[in-house]
């Protein structure tokens, strides 16, 4: 009997349990811990994918909510624009282009010569366009003042074009004649929501 065999035989009660414990641990490591590790790695990948899907869903939800919020805000702003900023009907538009224009022209020191009015439907819109071609005479500085007054007035005036020329009226030598095309817009159906 060799020395090692003798030692093993003499210490069997200690050696065998110890070797068995090491063997069981190795078996647990190989058969349980490593597969569990692989399973957890798979779970981590699935968790990452789920998180990405959640992020995507959050973005989609936020986008939808933003769209709805933007729509509501745009709706509100458009409502304000169509009802409070633009003239509400022809009568208000007429006041703007007839009465207020005359007052502003007079205040700017311009003399009235002629005007022509034309309401027309705006294609593809619920709005009507009310336009005036107004001919006035005066000094250049008066014309500038009038344009400035129109720009800064509360009413919704849109100066579409300006034509300038020497006045042909007698007794107005040196003054200018200006023909302005000014428009404003109002709802075609009073009280109805636009579009």
């Amino acid at each position, binding site marked *: 009997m060799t020395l090692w065999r003798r030692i093993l035989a003499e210490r069997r009660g200690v050696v065998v349990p110890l070797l068995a414990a090491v063997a069981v641990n190795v078996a647990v490591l190989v058969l349980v811990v490593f597969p569990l590790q692989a399973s957890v790695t798979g779970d981590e990948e699935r968790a990452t994918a789920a998180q990405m899907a959640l992020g995507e869903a959050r973005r989609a939800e936020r986008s939808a909510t933003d769209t709805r919020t933007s729509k509501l805000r745009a709706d509100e702003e*458009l409502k304000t624009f169509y009802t409070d900023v633009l003239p509400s009907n022809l009568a208000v538009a007429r006041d703007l282009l007839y009465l207020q224009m005359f007052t502003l022209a007079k205040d700017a020191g311009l003399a009235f010569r002629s005007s022509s009015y034309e309401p027309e439907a705006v294609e593809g819109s619920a709005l009507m366009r009310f336009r005036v071609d107004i001919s006035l005479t005066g000094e250049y500085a008066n014309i500038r003042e009038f344009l*400035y007054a129109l720009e800064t007035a509360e009413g919704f005036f849109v100066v579409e074009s300006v034509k300038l020329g020497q006045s042909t009226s007698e007794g107005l030598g040196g003054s200018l004649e200006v023909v302005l095309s000014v428009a404003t817009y109002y709802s075609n159906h009073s009280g109805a929501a636009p579009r």
Partner: protein
Amino acid sequence: MMLRGNLATRPFYNERVVALLLGLLAVVAVVLTLTNATRLMQLSSRRSALRAQTSADADAAARLRQNAVSVQSSVDASTLNALAGSAREANGLIDARTFSWTTFFSYIEDTIPMGVRLTAVSPEIEKGNITVTMLVMGRRVEDVATFMTALENTGAFYDARPTVADRTDDGLERVTVIVGYLPVAKDASAGGGR
């Protein structure tokens, strides 16, 4: 003379070395056991947490997607298109309303040569781009060309070009000029001008 061989049937061996080796084996067994146990507990706990998290994330994602679909369906495409059309129209009107004739004439006053007279102006605003059509009368072609160059030199006008040109009975050059306009803040009061 002494005998060198050991004639004992059960000779002594170094028990300390054997005890040390057995101790080492025991330590390995204990360390392995502890490591395995710890790792198993950690992995089990991590797996449970991950699965719970995955499940919660999937549920939340499904809920959010459903909510998004529900919100989207409350905003139908035709309403949105109509709204976009109205917004475009309103923006166009606001752009036209906010065109500053005062600023525009201020530029013209700064640039128009003595031999040129502006007789008609009409701006056109589309998608925020302003194109101004001007009818000008000049004594000479050079005067009109100088005017166009001067406009561009202000930095507020670009791509000035004549489109129609003829000569009036008075011998004046009558030119329709189209020019892009990008107004910048300028001190333009109502009064000034020639």
